């Protein structure tokens, strides 16, 4: 699979979902798309066939508001039919605006920020108890890091030296009210995690090749959990949405939809050349 082209393909699905549903978190979807694409299509052993087992890899989208990107990836992997995407956020649908484990492919519900890392710690401890080789991945937002519970999980991960655990921070420098540095300073992530006993890898989180290398390095590292500080661009892929706090959960107009779609299609085509 051409992962680079696929990221732009997935973003088109996300744009479609949100434009149709008239709700969604497009900025955070676009910043995390490359991470989900690489994890599900290259790194993790999670398929519709093995989903019922415990000894496969495990994944939690702790920044649950980016569920549209997860829907796009899971649908492409065959967890549910494409028609189901038509029902996202509609009356009576199970495809709601946050991960819900009535949906095939989703294991933990999220949406309230700051839970995912500690849940992942539990999954990693279970893996160790069962002497399973599976790995556990949790993806968090950078605004989310203000929740104290994140650091309780970080402490436990470091304390138990869970090298089967990999946290990913979608470091896009934005949250709802503005930049993270304006709302609650998140600078020096790398030093903070190192101090909590984690192996830290910094990477361009919108570069699929760099991400693949980072996940490979994380899996090879023994004795500590790894955090990948994925430096991303919120709204990545559609130039007028990039680095704009306002696109956290804005719904595109018809004109914006056309413009965004054209840009994503052009980028997909270029990546395929």
């Amino acid at each position, binding site marked *: 699979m051409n992962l680079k082209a696929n990221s732009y393909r997935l973003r088109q699905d996300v744009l479609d979902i949100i434009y149709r549903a008239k*709700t969604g978190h497009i900025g955070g979807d676009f910043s995390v798309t490359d991470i989900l694409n690489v994890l599900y299509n290259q790194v993790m052993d999670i398929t519709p066939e093995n989903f019922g087992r415990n000894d496969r890899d495990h994944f939690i989208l702790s920044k649950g508001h980016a569920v549209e990107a997860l829907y796009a990836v899971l649908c492409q992997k065959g967890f549910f039919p494409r028609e189901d995407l038509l029902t996202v956020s509609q009356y*009576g649908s199970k495809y*709601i605006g946050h991960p819900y484990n009535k949906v095939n492919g989703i294991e933990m*519900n*999220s*949406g*309230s920020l700051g839970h995912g890392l500690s849940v992942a710690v539990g999954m990693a401890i279970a893996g160790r108890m069962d002497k399973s080789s599976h790995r556990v991945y949790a993806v968090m937002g950078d605004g989310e890091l203000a929740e104290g519970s994140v650091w309780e999980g970080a402490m436990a991960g470091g304390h138990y030296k869970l090298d089967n655990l990999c946290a990913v921070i979608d470091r896009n420098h934005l*949250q709802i*009210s503005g930049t993270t540095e304006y709302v609650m300073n998140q600078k020096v992530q790398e030093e903070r995690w190192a101090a909590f006993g984690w192996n830290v890898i910094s990477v361009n989180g919108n570069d699929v090749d760099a991400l693949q290398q980072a996940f490979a390095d994380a899996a090879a590292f023994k004795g500590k959990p790894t955090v990948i500080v994925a430096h991303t661009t919120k709204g990545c892929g559609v130039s007028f949405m990039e680095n704009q706090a306002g696109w956290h959960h804005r719904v595109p107009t018809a004109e914006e939809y056309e413009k965004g779609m054209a840009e994503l299609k052009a980028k997909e085509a270029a990546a395929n050349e």
Partner: protein
Amino acid sequence: MNKIANKQVICEVLMEKAKNDKDVVVLCSDSRGSSSLTPYADAFPEQFVEVGIAEQSLVSIAAGLARCGKKPYAASPACFLSTRSMEQAKVDCAYSHTNVKLIGVSGGVSYGALGMTHHSATDIADMASIPGMRVYLPSDRFQTRKLMEALYADTDPAYVRVGRNAVEDIYSEDNCPFEMDRATVLGEGSDVAIIACGEMVKPAVEAMEKLKAEGVSAGVLDMYCVKPLDAAAVIKAAENAKAVVVVEEHTRLCGLGAMVAQVLGENCPRRMKSLGLPDAPAIAGKSQEVFDYYGLNADGIAAAAHELLK
């Protein structure tokens, strides 16, 4: 249709107070937009504290401010404020008795399609169960203003829940009877007493009209003061009537319905029906779709009344 949400009125009142009282402080947890408090934050940067996405810290910092003489208003979506920071509300606000006003916005199923993480279907239960914590669910913008004025004037902790969208008016500029901690009587009936709070007051009033047209004598109590519950008003309304219907945007467990049932059982047993959300994640949809699905509308309330009077 009124276009001003109750949370916007809260912002207006806080801006009026902050102008003349430097001790008024508003705190948000990356929630100034959802709380409609951006105008406040822009106008009073010196009386505003942003804590980031950290609802526990939000409430404890507010308690610290209150201990040192400030009048803090901590605003965040009701779902997170009532559960994530419940222990902070219990220990730092109620138990330590600090003058913290907790403002839960976009309450109930306002965030319809965002799922159970974003619904506050348990906030009455959570907050009302804390000794010393008061719980208010104002119905419309006029009552919200009166409530905020009254809360500004006292020094005890309280939790206020308002919805996300503008709701239709119940009262008007010059007709909004309000007495703190006393239910507002919107009608008296000899067949059925309907008791409602928050966004459910409007359908309760509509049900009253509908029942009257059908020959049933119905009354409505706007029980914005869920705690301390106006038990005297409940008893009076029930004594006059044959049956009681309670309606709330909250799980049927441990909310207004349960509190009213306790008062009725102890004082004047009546046939009653409590309408609310199920003990399960609510169905996805817009608020009105969710209300209609669970019969939290005029038809559902009227049907419950007829059933009781059979």
